C-alpha cells in the first residue's frame, strides 16, 4: 500500500526509532497526488481499476453498443456510440473514469488475496480495506510543544474533528471514542496510545473488537524560519460497509478526507485568528448569527449549543443557505461541542484567543 501505510506504522509501531522516517514537510501537491494514486490507480499497478472479467465484458458490451449506434444515424446514435467507445476503452485500458470519479476499484480482486498489512504492533487496520487520510496544516504563532499539548489532551480532539462526539481518557494510555457515523448513527470504540514523543508524535490505534478499526498518528514539527508548527494528521480506518460505504458517505457529503481537511482549516483559523470566518449574506440567511461557526466564535458551551440545537427549527434559521464545498456554517452540523480558545482549555466560556492587538 505504499508509503502511507509505512508512515502510519512507523509513527505508531516503532517507538522513537521511527521518528523522522521520512521528511515531514513534503510538498502538499505531491502529497495529494500520491494520495490520489493510492486511492484510485494503484490497485492494478498500471493505473487500472477494473478487473479482468469486467474488462472483457466491457469490451464486448461496448462493441455491441457501438455497432448498434453506427446503424442509427441520429443524435442518440452518436451518444450511444460515444458510450460504447468508452466501454471498449475501459475494457482495453482497464481504467474506468466512472469508477475513478466514484473512488471505486475492482482491480484488486484480480490478484486475489494480497493482504498488505501494517507492520509491527500496529496491524489494527487491514490495509487492503483501509481508507487513508493524510493532511498537513501549519499553525502560525505557536510552538510544537504548545500544539502537541493541546492534542495530547484527547478530550480536546472533538473540538477539532467535528464528527467526533466525545473522547474520554480512561487512563494514561487508554481512551473511549464516540463518533458520528453516516445516516445519523453513532459509533464508539476503545483506543490505545501506542507512541508518544512530546512535541513530536502522537499515535493511537483502536483495540480489537471495534466497529470501525482505525489508527492514527499526528506529527508535530517546527516549520522553518519561525513559520509556526506543521501538524500532519494521518488516519486509517476500515469503513463499516467497505468501499460501497465510502461511496455512499461521499454522496451524502460526508467524505472523511474532506471533513479532516476542513476541520484542520477551522482549527487553524480558531488558533490563529481567534474566530472562524462567517459570511452569512443578509439577503439570504435569516439569522446569520445562529450558524455553527458563529456559535463557536461566541464561545458557547456544549450544553448551550445542545439546548439550542434541540429547540431550533432548522428551516427557520437557514432558509436558503446553499451548502458549498467546505462550508461548515450549517445548522445541521451543530454538534455537542464546547467552543472558544482552542489552545488552552477544554471546558470554557472564555473569549477566543487573539494574538493580534
Amino acid at each position, binding site marked *: 500500500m505504499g508509503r502511507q501505510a509505512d508512515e502510519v506504522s512507523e509513527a505508531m509501531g516503532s517507538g522513537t526509532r521511527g521518528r523522522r522516517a521520512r521528511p515531514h514537510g513534503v510538498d502538499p501537491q505531491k502529497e495529494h497526488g500520491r494520495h490520489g494514486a493510492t486511492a484510485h490507480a494503484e490497485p492494478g499497478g498500471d493505473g487500472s481499476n477494473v478487473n479482468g472479467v469486467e474488462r472483457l465484458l466491457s469490451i464486448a458490451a461496448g462493441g455491441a453498443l457501438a455497432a448498434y449506434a453506427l446503424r442509427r444515424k441520429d443524435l442518440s446514435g452518436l451518444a450511444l456510440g460515444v458510450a460504447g467507445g468508452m466501454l471498449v476503452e475501459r475494457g482495453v485500458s482497464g481504467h474506468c473514469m466512472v469508477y475513478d470519479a466514484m473512488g471505486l476499484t475492482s482491480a484488486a480482486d484480480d490478484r486475489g488475496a494480497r493482504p498488505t498489512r501494517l507492520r509491527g504492533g500496529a496491524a489494527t487496520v487491514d490495509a487492503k480495506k483501509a481508507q487513508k487520510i493524510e493532511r498537513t496544516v501549519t499553525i502560525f504563532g505557536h510552538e510544537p510543544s504548545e500544539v502537541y499539548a493541546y492534542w495530547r489532551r484527547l478530550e480536546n480532539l472533538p473540538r477539532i474533528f467535528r464528527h467526533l462526539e466525545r473522547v474520554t481518557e480512561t487512563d494514561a494510555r487508554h481512551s473511549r471514542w464516540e463518533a458520528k457515523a453516516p445516516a445519523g448513527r453513532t459509533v464508539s470504540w476503545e483506543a490505545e496510545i501506542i507512541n508518544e514523543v512530546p512535541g513530536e508524535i502522537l499515535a493511537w490505534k483502536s483495540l480489537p473488537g471495534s466497529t470501525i478499526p482505525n489508527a492514527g498518528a499526528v506529527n508535530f514539527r517546527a516549520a522553518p524560519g519561525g513559520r509556526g508548527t506543521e501538524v500532519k494528521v494521518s488516519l486509517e480506518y476500515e469503513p463499516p460497509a467497505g468501499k460501497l460505504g465510502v461511496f455512499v458517505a461521499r454522496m451524502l457529503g460526508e467524505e472523511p478526507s474532506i471533513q479532516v481537511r476542513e476541520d484542520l482549516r477551522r482549527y487553524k483559523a480558531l488558533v490563529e485568528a481567534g474566530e472562524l470566518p462567517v459570511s452569512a*449574506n443578509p*439577503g439570504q440567511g435569516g439569522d446569520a448569527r445562529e450558524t455553527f461557526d*458563529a456559535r463557536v466564535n461566541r464561545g458557547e458551551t456544549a450544553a448551550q449549543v445542545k439546548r439550542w440545537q434541540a429547540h431550533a427549527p432548522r428551516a427557520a434559521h437557514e432558509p436558503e443557505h446553499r451548502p458549498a*464545498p*467546505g462550508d461548515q456554517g450549517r445548522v445541521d452540523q451543530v454538534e455537542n461541542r464546547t467552543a472558544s480558545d482552542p489552545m488552552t482549555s477544554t471546558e470554557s466560556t472564555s473569549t477566543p484567543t487573539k494574538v493580534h492587538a
Partner: protein
Amino acid sequence: MKAVCWHGVEDMRVDRVPDPELINPRDAIVRITSTAICGSDLHLYGGKVPTMEKGDILGHEFMGVVEETGRGVSNLRKGDRVVVPFTIACGNCYYCQSDLWSACDNSNPNAAMLEELNGFSTSGIFGYSHMYGGYAGGQAEYVRVPFADVGPLKIESGIEDEKVLFLTDIFPTGYQAAEQCGIRPGDTVAIWGAGPVGLFAAMSARLLGAERVIVIDRFPERLAKARELADADTIDYETDTDDPVEMLKQMTGGRGPDHVIDAVGMEAHGTDLYSGIDRAKQFAKLQLDRATALRQCIQACAKGGTVSIPGVYAGFIDKFPMGQAFAKGLTFKMGQTHMHKYLRPLLERIERGEIDPSRIITHRVRIDDAPRMYELFQQKKDDCVKVVLKP
C-alpha cells in the same frame, strides 16, 4: 436596507434586504456614505466569475461611519469615519504578519472552493462571489465588516469622501502595480488600460519618479484623462497604430518601455489574430481569460524589465510568449493588492495634496441608479470612467 444585488448575467437590481448584524467578536457594522462600482465588478456583471448566486450584494469599494462594533474591536467606536479595504484579512496569520494581506489564510469561509480552483486559498473579498468568501458587499446602506480591528482606516480629518474613497481599492491597486516595478530615475512605464486602475497606476508611476508614462487604450476620453492626470503619452491602438508593440519600441529609442503594467486583465480587447481566438475560446468556455494585453506587455517590455499585473486573471492562457519573457529576463509581479499595507501611507499622500483621486470620477448617482450605471460603465458609454454611488 437597500442593496445592489446580482440576479444573473447583466441583471443587477436594487433590492430591499435585511440589515446586516454583528456576527463575530471582531465585526463592525458600517453605515455606508459613499461607494463605487469597480472595473472588476464588471467581471461579475458579465458572468465571468463563477460561484455567484442570485441576491448576492456587490460592492467592494465603500466607506462610511461605524454604527456598531463587536467585543473584539477596541480601536473603533460608533461614529468613527472609516474607509474599508476590499480584501478581508485576519491580521494574525503568517501572510498578514508578512505584509502579504491578500494572501490571508483565515478570512475566507469558502476557502475550499478557491483551493479547488487555484490550489490555494487567498483572502476573502467583499461582494465578490462565494469562492472569495460569499461576503455581502458595500453597494448598500449598511455592511458588516469582519476583522474590523485590522481592516478599516479611520479618517480623522474632515477631508471629503470622494478624495479618500478610492483608498478602498483602485488607488492602492494602481500604486502597488507601479511600486512593484521598482521604478528608477529615467524609467519609462507603459500601461495597458486607461480605466481607473490604469489611471491610478499612471499617476502612481509619476509619484514614484517615472520619467515618462505611456498609456495604451482605445477610448479617446480615457486617454485624455491619462494625459490630464498623469501627463502621459498615449496610444490609441485602434486609430494610432495596428501594432502597439512596435510603436512603443519606436517611441523609446528602440529599447522598449522599462516596465509594463497590465491594467486590463482577463477581458482584454484587441485587433490581432490571437485576440480573436481568445474571444472565441472564452465564448465557448474553453478559456476564462483573454490575454491580449498581457501578451503585448511581454512583447513590448525592455530587456530586464518588469511586467506588473494588477488586472485580474482567473484561469489558463494559451499562446503565452514565454520564450520572449525568458529571452529578455523579465520579472513578473502580480496579484491582489496587499491593501492594508498601503492605506495609511497613501492617505498621507492624499492629505499632503500630492494626488487628488476624486479627479477620475465621471458619474455621481443615487444607489437606485446603480443598475443603469453598470450598463453604462460596461459599455463605456457617456465617457464613463468611474461611478460613485450615494446610498
